[in-house]
């Protein structure tokens, strides 16, 4: 006791405690002040860029470096958040009329619910005609309306990786760049027979695999031209019968495969379809042994899923003009190639990937481009507007796979039962259909 009196100016324990609490509480409290002002604060005069992309810290740092090098119009405070925060931030700021963010970037599905909160960008799009956006991609930016709501930023999709060893079993007359679903089945069957009964095809049907996207964006659109509306049509039955046959000659261990690049690189399978980001490591060690090819075609065309990200400006953005300059800078060939090289998202502009890119990415870029330029392409989008129900809708497609291909149940019966469940979810949500289903109507299985 005497000590503390004698100490005079010494800080008491209580004061220290208070100080400590304050130090802990200050950042926590200031975080409530709005997402855009914290995290990546570039100081005054900087443009706040809210995004759902590049949330992993390495990706974010690489993208910030690109921003620093390619954007000269303004300092950009890049703030990647998950889509829940993204939604609530845009909604609350725009609806309250107190907008702090000037630029938002997200997948088509992230931006679509906010069409009314985004500025029309027709004037900006008019100045960007030289970029050579693919018409399909650019058209998505209207979000179903008549004016441009977002400018394409970057894209990803799913393609097939093929080990050249598998080419010897390719059916005669088949062009690996222009396969049909029937040829794929023939190939997989011949491959298994030629490989001593060991299947050469793999499928990402593991717990974290993206195989539901194959049904949603590839198999069903190629056979039926739709995703949800045609879910239980006669063509869909045909598609699932096909899937059953393909599964019979696919590696059974596929139910453990999450990222196809791993079994491909290990040589367990030779051919596989997956997301570009999940195939990119397969050809890393010996790129000359690999080719990447577009997805196959079905009776209705080449169905493929386009994962497209766009940039938009919220209504009432404080730095709208600077934001437009940033969009211009990020859609230049150089910036697009930088993003491809650093973060493996593909350009949306018409640009030839330079020779200096890593070979695996060059292989993929060619396949992505071929897929996009196919004249009979049927584009699908990842489900739009489902929010937290995306997992449940995807599960319906996984259930179909399990019951039809693994349990061997009758196709029509399974589809009817799953359609009922799908409609139960969709009736609750009441969202409009997304591509390839006709837009406008409330989405439902017919």
């Amino acid at each position: 006791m005497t000590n503390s009196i004698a100490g005079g100016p010494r800080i008491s324990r209580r004061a220290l405690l208070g100080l400590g609490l304050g130090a802990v509480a200050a950042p926590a409290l200031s975080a409530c002040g709005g997402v855009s002002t914290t995290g990546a604060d570039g100081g005054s005069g900087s443009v706040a860029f809210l995004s759902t992309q590049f949330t992993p810290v390495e990706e974010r740092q690489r993208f910030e470096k690109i921003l620093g090098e390619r954007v000269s119009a303004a300092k950009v405070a890049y703030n990647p958040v998950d889509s829940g925060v993204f939604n609530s931030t845009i909604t609350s700021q725009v609806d309250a009329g107190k907008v702090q963010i000037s630029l938002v970037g997200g997948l088509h599905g992230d931006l679509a619910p906010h069409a009314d909160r985004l500025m029309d960008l027709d004037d900006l799009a008019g100045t960007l005609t030289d970029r050579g956006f693919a018409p399909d991609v650019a058209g998505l930016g209207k979000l179903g309306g008549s004016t441009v709501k977002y400018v394409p930023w970057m894209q990803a999709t799913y393609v097939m990786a093929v080990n050249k060893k598998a080419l010897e079993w390719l059916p005669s007359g088949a062009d690996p760049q222009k396969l049909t679903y029937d040829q794929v089945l023939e190939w997989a069957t011949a491959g298994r027979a030629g490989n001593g009964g060991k299947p050469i095809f793999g499928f990402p049907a593991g717990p974290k695999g993206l195989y539901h996207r194959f049904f949603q964006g590839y198999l069903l659109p190629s056979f039926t031209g739709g995703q949800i509306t045609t879910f239980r049509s006669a063509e869909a039955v045909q598609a699932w019968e096909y899937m059953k046959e393909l599964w019979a000659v696919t590696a059974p261990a596929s139910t453990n495969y999450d990222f196809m690049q791993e079994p491909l690189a290990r040589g367990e399978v030779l051919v596989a379809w997956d997301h570009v980001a999940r195939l990119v490591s397969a050809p890393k060690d010996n790129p000359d042994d690999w080719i990447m090819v577009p997805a196959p075609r079905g009776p209705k065309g080449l169905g493929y899923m386009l994962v497209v990200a766009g940039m938009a400006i919220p209504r009432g953005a404080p730095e709208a003009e600077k934001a437009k300059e940033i969009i211009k800078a990020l859609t230049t060939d150089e910036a697009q190639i930088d993003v491809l090289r650093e973060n493996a998202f593909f350009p949306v502009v018409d640009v030839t990937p330079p020779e200096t890119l890593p070979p695996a990415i060059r292989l993929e870029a060619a396949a992505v481009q071929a897929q996009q330029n196919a004249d009979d392409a049927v584009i699908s989008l990842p489900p739009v507007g489902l929010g937290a129900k995306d997992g449940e809708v995807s599960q319906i497609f996984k259930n179909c796979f399990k019951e039809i291909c693994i349990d061997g149940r009758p196709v029509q019966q399974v589809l009817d039962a799953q359609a009922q469940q799908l409609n139960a979810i969709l009736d609750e949500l009441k969202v409009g259909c997304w591509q390839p289903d006709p837009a406008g109507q409330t989405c439902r299985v017919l």
Partner: protein
Amino acid sequence: MARRRPGRSRLPAPLLLIGPSLVFMTVLFAWPMVVGVAQAFTGDQGATLRYVQRMVDDAYFWPAMRNTLLLIVVLIPLQFAFALAMALMLRARPRFHGVYFYIWVLPLAISDLAAGLVWLSIFTDRGYLNSVLHMLGLQPYAWLSYQNPTSLFLTVLIAELWRATSLVLVIIVAGLQGIPKDYDEVASVFGATYWQRLRYVILPQLRPSLQVAMILRTILALQTFAVAQALAGRNFPLLVGETYYWYNFLQNPNVAAAIALVVLAISMVTAVGYLRLLRDRSPGAAR
């Protein structure tokens, strides 16, 4: 004032004593349970059976139910047979019986998930078991493939047997220690065989311990999750695993709550069933 004092102090004393546990139970047990039940039966537009319908219609629900019950029916008798045999062996006090006891109880100290991962490293396609088979010149076998449901079930059964038998053992050993040796000695003096002594002397006195172990084990077996999850994932669906899946991956807490209620209902029915089944009906029973 003076007259009210005794009345005032008579009521609060017991209330004060049970107060903390009452608050505890309300906040941490009753309230979440009410919320859980409400979650399973209410949607945006008030009361609904929609989520129960979703649960029942789901492709994984009935297999999960079947697997859970099958696991209990096969696992519990096996565990009791093993645990009883082990406990009786320990009772005979062989050499190093202390060491045996510690080794047998070891799994109790290991987390479910860790145990599941250990067994996964044994049974997985390129795991220890297949390596041994390969060394012996035998064909490796896909133990955990969805194509081999029997081996899938057996691996989960073995892992659970290994992991959870020790709990039964500990309870039975404790129960055995509480039985006075006199009865057993008297029986052997009168010429009862070992089996007769086991059947008519030891087991009846072990009844309370067995009852406790049975209820505990069945409820815990209903909650089997981490081991099966690690070994088989959704290839071998179990009820609690489905709860986790619906809550976590499908982000539908309502259906998850409905499945959890099914687990609760089965637990309660089996617990009551055991209590009635194992009630001591002999005339000399204390209660």
